[in-house]
């Protein structure tokens, strides 16, 4: 039987609100607006809630009765609920036992577009200042390291070098070789039109050495290692391990951040060089297999076109990217709140921040290299 409430007036000016049927959260509840209209029209002094025909009930009845009580209170009508089941009265009393803490209610800001843009802009500004603070702390910690006052453990640096370097080789190899093959194939299709397949070597060699090797390696490291840094430090924050470090007299920057940045700075140039070599190798396979450019021809062309500065520029850029990826990972990890969801957010944010840093710094460095004519022939 569906939940129902019927309203009637007695001669003595008392309204009788009779509840009947089975009140369940699955069922459609009666419209309270009709009850409000009835009570407003009749203006009884007292409303008597009757539950003689009430079947089974759950929280649906309780929330309905609480809303009904609020209406009665607004209309100044006395409530008589003595006939309600003991359980219902007990549950309602329990829900009202602790009054609402007014100071705990958060101010709801309007959700319009301009407000959201404004809030995001403020957040970005604060985030920028926090990042500046963080970089400042890293500089101070690095200064202490140079003066031999740091508590950084070199064993931690070695552990992270193993993690950032050799352990990353398989994925760097795979992506490096594929990147070289793709560059060669896409370029060669166009070059073949002009009979200039031999220039595949220039395209792949210069492309990988100057830009693609560094970019690809650092983006991979942002996804692989930057996120791992954020997750590690985030989990440590959740487990109070960072606080334990602080209260044991260790700076998290010196103890956790510096080893990671140094490890990344030391390993990423080698990874970049490795990716460059494998990319060039991948290009040579495509050139030899599909475009009739033998490997000796390919290498000869490469030798005439590539200069050490091309590799140096790429590797130098990659070292900067590596530092930025490690900074982004550690920054987001230490920003983590004390809950599991926040670790996930920190990890995602570390990758996004790392990639933004890579792209922005690449643009800046490319402009600087152009301005300094470093690649001029």
């Amino acid at each position, binding site marked *: 039987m569906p939940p129902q409430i019927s309203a009637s007036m007695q001669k003595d000016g008392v309204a009788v609100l009779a509840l009947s049927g089975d009140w369940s959260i699955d069922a459609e509840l009666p419209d309270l607006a009709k009850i409000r209209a009835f009570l407003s029209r009749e203006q009884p002094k007292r409303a008597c809630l009757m539950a003689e025909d009430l079947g*089974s009930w759950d929280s649906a009845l309780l929330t309905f009765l609480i809303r009904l009580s609020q209406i009665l209170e607004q209309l100044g009508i006395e409530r008589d609920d003595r006939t309600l089941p003991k359980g219902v009265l*007990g549950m309602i*009393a329990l829900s009202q036992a602790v009054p609402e803490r007014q100071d705990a209610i958060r101010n709801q800001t309007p959700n319009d577009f301009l407000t959201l843009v404004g809030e995001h802009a403020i957040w970005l500004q604060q985030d920028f200042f926090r990042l500046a603070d963080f970089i400042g702390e890293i500089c101070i910690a690095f200064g202490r390291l140079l003066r031999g006052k740091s508590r950084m453990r070199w064993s931690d640096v070695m552990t992270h070098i193993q993690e950032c370097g050799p352990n990353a080789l398989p994925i760097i190899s795979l992506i490096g070789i594929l990147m070289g093959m793709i560059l060669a194939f896409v370029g060669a299709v166009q070059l073949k039109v002009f009979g200039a397949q031999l220039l595949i070597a220039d395209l792949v060699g210069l492309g990988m050495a100057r830009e693609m090797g560094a970019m690809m390696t650092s983006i991979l490291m942002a996804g692989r290692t930057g996120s791992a840094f954020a997750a590690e430090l985030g989990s440590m924050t959740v487990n109070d391990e960072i606080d334990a470090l*602080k209260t*044991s007299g260790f700076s998290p920057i010196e103890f956790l951040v510096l080893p990671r940045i140094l490890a990344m700075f030391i390993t990423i140039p080698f990874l970049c060089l490795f990716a460059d070599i494998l990319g060039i190798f991948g290009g040579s396979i495509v050139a030899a297999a599909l475009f009739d450019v033998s490997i000796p021809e390919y290498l000869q062309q490469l030798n005439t076109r590539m200069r050490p500065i091309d590799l140096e520029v790429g590797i130098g850029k990659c070292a900067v990217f590596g530092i930025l990826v490690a900074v982004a990972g550690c920054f987001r990890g230490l920003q983590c709140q004390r809950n599991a969801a926040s670790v996930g957010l920190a990890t995602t944010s570390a990758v996004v921040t790392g990639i933004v840093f890579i792209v922005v710094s690449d643009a800046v460095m490319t402009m600087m290299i152009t301005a300094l004519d470093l690649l001029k022939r």
Partner: protein
Amino acid sequence: MTNQALTFAASGTRSSTETGEPHIEVSNLTMAYDGFVIQTGMNFKVRRGEIFIIMGPSGCGKSTLLRHLIGIKAPSSGSVRFDGLDLWGVDHETRDSLLLRMGILYQSGALWSSMTLAENIALPLSAHTRLSKKEVAELVSFKLSLVGLSGFEDYYPAEISGGMQKRAALARAIALDPEILFFDEPSSGLDPISAGRLDELIVHLTESLGSTAVVVTHDLASILEIGTNSIYLDIETKSILAEGPPGDLLEISSSQNVRDFLSRGQGQKTRKTPPEHHQP
């Protein structure tokens, strides 16, 4: 527990009225997060040698107060003085040296998960003392033996049980023989027997080391058995509702809330009966 703990309380030798000068002094402390005030106008002293309990209902700010006392969170206003030195008024190096005189057992243990138990305990020893590696190793074994974990030196925190992690964290907390030990919900997540043993260990260690202990807890058994002095933080008035030895507060506190808390609601006048769920 612990006849020993009960004896301490009963004999009064560790009672707050007879212990020494203030070790920690909190004056007009206001704690807030993002403008939301948690507690305000807090004034209390922790005297040397006390086992000082910070108690109160969930969400009243006990752990936040602890974070203020151990120098992790700065007060919104007011001061926390450690042996007369304002923890947030001194320079960074002085604060670090003050913190080294404290040992902290975190609620989660907070052992560094990438290190073995021995490395966890050895780290503060090798960083802050001039001991040789051999001496550090001996001390590590000694500290682990104090908490009943001899032989577990090479285990990682993830390889041992929660109770063992707590004890290992306690061994790390006492690594530098601190003057004051802080415990954040030491018995949380432990079965009653392990919790009782940990309480016993806390009393033993603070007695033997001559340390002061500050314990944040709402575990009644711990409060009444090991506490020599206490404060009760009230969630509604956002202030300290009562201060004194827990046993005395249970008997004679003028606050109904405090008596209810310490008697698990048995003294509550308007006790709610659990509602029945009606299914005709």
